[in-house]
């Protein structure tokens, strides 16, 4: 008796759960799965919607591979700089007293509330030959230096735009860090630096992994920053997609997106393996 009853309950509960999940399911199908199918479909068809591998082949030519390599290089550089700035920032914010933490996090997020275009334009004003920074350098007798339309400018733009995405996940994991582990390490003979290296860094790796992904992925596919701050000299993969789109070659645009997506997925897969290993104690001593 009781067993059938509990079974019934569990059936109704799972039905209920299914109903509750239904809107998300439809949303996911409508706005994620179907568009992805379209992207794949366009990638493998020509203008007459006949099957073709030409678009994909076209991607693996020196023209696009150079762009891809440049995108990877700049995105990696931006990610690395974000990590170098973001990790200590997150660490120190998490260690200040909780009332101040809220304000500091607000300050980190504040630029994100401004439009992305305006932020990028702001950097143009700062970096141009007659800009504020060069003005200051000039008065010190060092400048003016060419800063606009360099790779450096593009990387600065990426770092500025995506830095919060690095800080927030690391900060969030730092606040959850078990303080007793810090005490335990210090009890076992770790000086503060060893505590940081042996306990805090390994514990915060999952935050680092998600921060890296959240900065790297938008950095590699950005197009506006390189256009404005790079002056078109540093054509990135995002720019390539946009150009194809604007010249009405949706099939080539789709193919570039599709390949980029696969590459990113492969990258994430590797990252995932990496983070799994480290949480198991494989990578960190």
């Amino acid at each position, binding site marked *: 008796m009781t067993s059938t009853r509990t079974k019934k309950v569990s059936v109704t509960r799972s039905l209920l759960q299914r109903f509750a999940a239904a809107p998300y399911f439809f949303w996911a199908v409508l706005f994620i799965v179907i568009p992805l199918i379209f992207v794949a479909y366009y990638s493998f068809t020509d203008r007459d919607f006949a099957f073709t591998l030409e678009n994909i082949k076209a991607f693996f030519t020196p023209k696009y591979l150079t762009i891809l390599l440049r995108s990877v290089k700049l995105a990696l550089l931006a990610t690395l700089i974000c990590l170098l700035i973001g990790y200590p920032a997150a660490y120190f914010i998490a260690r200040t007293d909780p009332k101040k933490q809220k304000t500091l996090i607000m300050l980190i997020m504040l630029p994100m509330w401004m439009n992305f275009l305006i932020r990028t334009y702001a950097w143009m004003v700062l970096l141009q030959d007659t800009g504020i920074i060069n003005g200051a350098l000039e008065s010190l007798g060092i400048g003016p230096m060419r800063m606009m339309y360099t790779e450096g400018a593009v990387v600065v733009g990426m770092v500025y735009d995506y830095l919060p995405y690095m800080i927030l996940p690391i900060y969030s994991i730092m606040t959850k860090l078990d303080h007793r582990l810090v005490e335990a390490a210090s009890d*076992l003979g770790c*000086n503060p630096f060893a505590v940081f290296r042996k306990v805090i860094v390994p514990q915060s790796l999952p935050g680092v992994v998600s921060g890296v992904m959240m900065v790297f992925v938008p950095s590699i596919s950005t197009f506006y920053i390189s256009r404005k701050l790079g002056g078109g000299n540093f054509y990135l993969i995002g720019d390539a997609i946009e150009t194809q789109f604007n010249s009405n070659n949706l099939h080539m645009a789709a193919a570039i997106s599709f390949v980029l997506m696969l590459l990113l997925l492969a990258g994430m897969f590797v990252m995932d393996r990496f983070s799994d290993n480290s949480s198991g104690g494989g990578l960190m001593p």
Partner: protein
Amino acid sequence: MNNSADKIIRLENIVKSFDDEMVLKRINLEIGDKEFVTLLGPSGCGKTTTLRIIGGFESPDEGVVYFDGKAVNDVPPYKRPVNTVFQKYALFPHLNVFENIAFGPKLKGASGPGLTAKVQEMLELVNLKGFEKRSISTLSGGQQQRVAIARALINEPRVLLLDEPLGALDLKLRKDMQLELKNIQQRMGITFVYVTHDQEEALSMSDIVVVMDNGEIQQIGTPEDIYNEPQNAFVADFIGESNILDGQMLDDYYVSFSGMKFRCLDSGFLKHEPVDVVVRPEDVDVVSPERGMLIGTVTSVTFKGVHFEIIVDIGGFKWMIQTTDYVENGSVIGLYIEPDAIHVMKKSEFSGMFGDYSTFSEEMEHLSDTEEPEEE
């Protein structure tokens, strides 16, 4: 005083406040080498803070902590010759069992077969042979506890601090671990400072029990002293069961309570000094009403296995008595109390706070015994 040479730790006038609340009020404590000392008290009494001050995780607002006669107030935890077994183990989740235990020695540069052998030895000591490669998350609470102990002991500390180490374990496992800990302490010959709110645990394991309440030490003594000669009503109530009565010292060796005069073994009080009188439930003999020194009515009988626990109403005061003879609920019985069963205490701030057993219930007992949340 001249035996201070073998005192490994000395706390002198320790004061500590958190947010204007004074949690330690002038603690003075000496801990001898190779002793098993237990800090015992209810939640919030300051026992954990005292331990953390010894470990170096908190620094006292006032007072001095001495190790081997040297003040160590400014010595950080990683330079103190102590190791700690933390309340909820605090094992490193990103390391496996071997790496957790090897953590301390590795910091000091140990490696290779020497280290492996040492870890093996520790694993054997805590009965976890063959667990080296296991990850922490796959271990049960008892196993994690053992890893925590091994991780601390491998450093061969002079003093091991244990903060409610058995709090999260079930009763059976707890009893086993109590015995094991005591064995380990004796075999390795190191000083244990043990924090618990479980009086039974404190009595059965310790050489010295330090009873604390309200940020003050209430009594320091051997388990027998603490149980048999409690210094005030708080200690009498907190350690074991006790009937605490209002009494008056008539003269040396004579005390009156419950309207009767009794012979006792206590002396040195003023004439007619008001006192607290403690009578343990197991020290009272149940006799016929004619032979009784006190006569009362049984209001409750509970079978406890080894004995019956009965509540007897004597002039409105409910006594708890443990007897192996069955008595009928509602019957009138006599109580006989030997002089050595009566313990007289000076009045204290706790007098009157602990009355009779009229509100006693099994449930309350369990509530106060359950594991306390993160203290202090």
